């Protein structure tokens, strides 16, 4: 029997339907301590007088940690890509979003941990938060980082992600119409049914066993090892079975802190976020602000696109520079547009840091460019299927960063959609395929961008 192509049952299906699948929270280790966090009540504030002595003295409390307990306080999630760190594991001197962790307590039970959190002394001086990315560039905008309000380290020196191809000026000049619009998808929660959770057990041999809900075992291990300044053989990350992720569990949200608490207390430590913490303190999909101006001809060719993207990163960079770069590479969507001017900024605000989520970087640009495409069709009075088929990327066309498309399927999927909707396409369009451009489908403005698919 062939395995590939077969409708085989889930490998872990029987475990799922018998309730036997073991998620992190189902691992029970005697003597496990509960964790609670002191989180920032303010969107932006400086703080002083952090005093954990009363909490530490409470019966049942086994460890309290603050920034002073973290060997490497700031670790960049994407340090391997040269993206410098900006986010402390636990806040030091200032908080940049409501819910930011400042101190953690591990105690015999939840109530004791919570009481100890409330016994931690701290004084905040509130600051005006920056919340609107469109105002971040203004002189009077509150300043969030020493870097300023937007991320300055693309390719080491660029303060923006930039794409340039052809000549946008020429495209605007040649256009019959320039269609301009603004697109703003919202921040949303990942909403995995399993909230962020980890359990760290200090072993007799000095290793730490980290039961984790991570989407990326090795990635999380690397993050913990960096913060703790230990080699990888000191850690064993146990996981691989996750109660939903959708991108949010690429963040290493709890593992490092549990590891520090386990080291300090010598006891197993678990931290399971409440649903409220998951909704209010976990990272979200980013809100984006996108402006597009397309140079179009009256018969529906898109000659050029100018685009500005502001990516609301929240208080810290996390994966946002990566997401924006990916976004920029796909800002023409499923089409070939030869003249491009794209500028994108990762903008900081005093909201919960945003992170990867299903479709990272591209969900936003798909919404913007496809809604814009529909608008172009309406403005020009053209059929929305035909405008798409006409501009669809084809074998031999090139992407915004000059990569040749070798197997694009825009034409097949749009034609199949028309079929599925019972829409009859005009004969020219019904006859289209994805092969290289010729004849009417190779107007002058698309000649220069062509490349040989064999060069892939």
């Amino acid at each position: 029997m062939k395995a590939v192509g077969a409708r085989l049952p889930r490998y872990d299906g029987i475990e799922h339907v018998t309730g036997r699948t073991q998620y992190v929270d189902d691992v029970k280790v005697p003597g496990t301590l509960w964790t609670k966090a002191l989180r920032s009540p303010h969107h932006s504030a400086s703080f002083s007088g952090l005093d954990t002595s009363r909490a530490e003295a409470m019966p049942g409390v086994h460890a309290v940690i603050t920034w002073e307990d973290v060997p490497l306080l700031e670790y960049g999630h994407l340090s391997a890509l040269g993206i410098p760190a900006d986010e402390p594991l636990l806040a030091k001197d200032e908080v940049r979003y409501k819910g930011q962790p400042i101190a953690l307590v591990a105690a015999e039970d939840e109530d004791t941990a919570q009481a100890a959190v409330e016994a931690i002394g701290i004084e905040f001086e509130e600051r005006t938060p920056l919340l609107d990315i469109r105002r971040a560039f203004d002189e009077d905008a509150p300043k969030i980082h020493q870097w300023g309000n937007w991320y300055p380290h693309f390719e080491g020196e660029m303060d923006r992600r930039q794409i340039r191809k052809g000549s946008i000026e020429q495209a605007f000049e040649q256009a019959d119409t320039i269609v301009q619009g603004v697109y703003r998808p919202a921040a949303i929660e990942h909403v995995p049914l399993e909230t962020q959770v980890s359990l760290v057990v200090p072993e007799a041999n000095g290793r730490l066993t980290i039961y984790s809900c991570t989407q990326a075992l090795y990635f999380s291990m690397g993050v913990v090892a960096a913060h703790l300044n230990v080699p990888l053989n000191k850690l064993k990350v146990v996981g691989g079975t996750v109660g939903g992720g959708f991108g949010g569990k690429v963040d290493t949200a709890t593992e490092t802190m549990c590891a520090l608490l386990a080291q300090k207390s010598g006891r197993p430590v678990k931290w399971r976020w409440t649903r409220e913490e998951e909704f209010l303190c976990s990272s979200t999909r980013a809100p984006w602000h996108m402006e597009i101006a397309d140079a179009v001809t009256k018969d529906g060719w898109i000659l050029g696109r100018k685009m500005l993207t502001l990516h609301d990163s929240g208080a810290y960079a996390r994966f946002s520079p990566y997401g924006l770069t990916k976004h920029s590479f796909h800002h023409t969507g499923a089409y070939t547009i030869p003249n491009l001017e794209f500028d994108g900024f990762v903008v900081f605000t005093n909201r919960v840091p945003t992170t990867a989520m299903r479709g990272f970087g591209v969900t936003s640009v798909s919404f913007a460019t496809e809604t814009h495409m529909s608008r172009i069709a309406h403005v020009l009075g053209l059929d929305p299927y035909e405008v798409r088929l006409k501009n669809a990327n084809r074998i031999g066309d090139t992407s915004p960063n000059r990569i040749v498309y070798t197997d694009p399927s825009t034409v097949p999927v749009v034609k199949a959609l028309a079929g599925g909707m019972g829409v009859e396409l005009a004969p020219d369009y019904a006859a289209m395929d994805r092969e290289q451009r010729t004849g009417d489908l190779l107007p002058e403005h698309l000649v220069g961008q062509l490349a040989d698919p064999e060069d892939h």
Partner: protein
Amino acid sequence: MTKATEVISPTSADEAASLFGDGSGVTVIAGGTIVVPDITYGRVAPGKALLLGGAGLDTLDAAGSTVTVGAGLPVQRLSELAEDVEALAECALNVADYEVRRQGTVGGNVCAGAAGDAPRGDLQGPFLALDATARSAGAGGERSEPLEEFLAHRKDRLLLDLTFEKPAASAFASLDYPHTHAYTVLAVTGVRAADGTVRLAATGLAGHGARLRAAEAAADADAAGAAAVGDVTLGDDALASAWYRERALPVLVRRVLAKLGEAA
């Protein structure tokens, strides 16, 4: 957790009333759907918990022209009144989901405060429109009063039951997201009493549910819709803004009045 709590489980309504006393220091747990999460999340730390499950308050008497609904009746069971009071049954089936309706009680729903970021207390609407009488225990002993008055101090009293006359017709219209675990953004209930009087009430407001008296007095449905806005205080929450509710309320009033017309 909650080890210090004294838990008492009365076995009759009278015993419940007497154990409730003046209510001070007492946490009432009927269905538990509101208060148990509050305990879990540390927002309520009961010193003394009154568990009402066995108190016999889950009564429903609709045999005659008057209906009496025990405060301990599961919300789901109001569906049994579909023929007598369509709006009440419809509103009840609009609350949360099957499991929560089976567990949550009429009293808990009627006495609910706002959830912080969303309105609660959907059943206040139909009971207000039905001009229900609330019988409650608490300081000064047992008392019966119009629900409208009871709502103002509902947190201090133990609701025992609600009584109302069967109406000639009733109608319900709501704005809610299709999935039931969301709270109702805004809802309007209309009742035509046996004597022809039309009463309207709304929930999803800044405070608890309210009668729409100016709307009731208006000449026609359009005027009623417009007048309803003056009857209420609207707020912003996670589900909708006051701006939106101000525009949607007249629509719901018109729809309820249209339905009442159909039901004539």
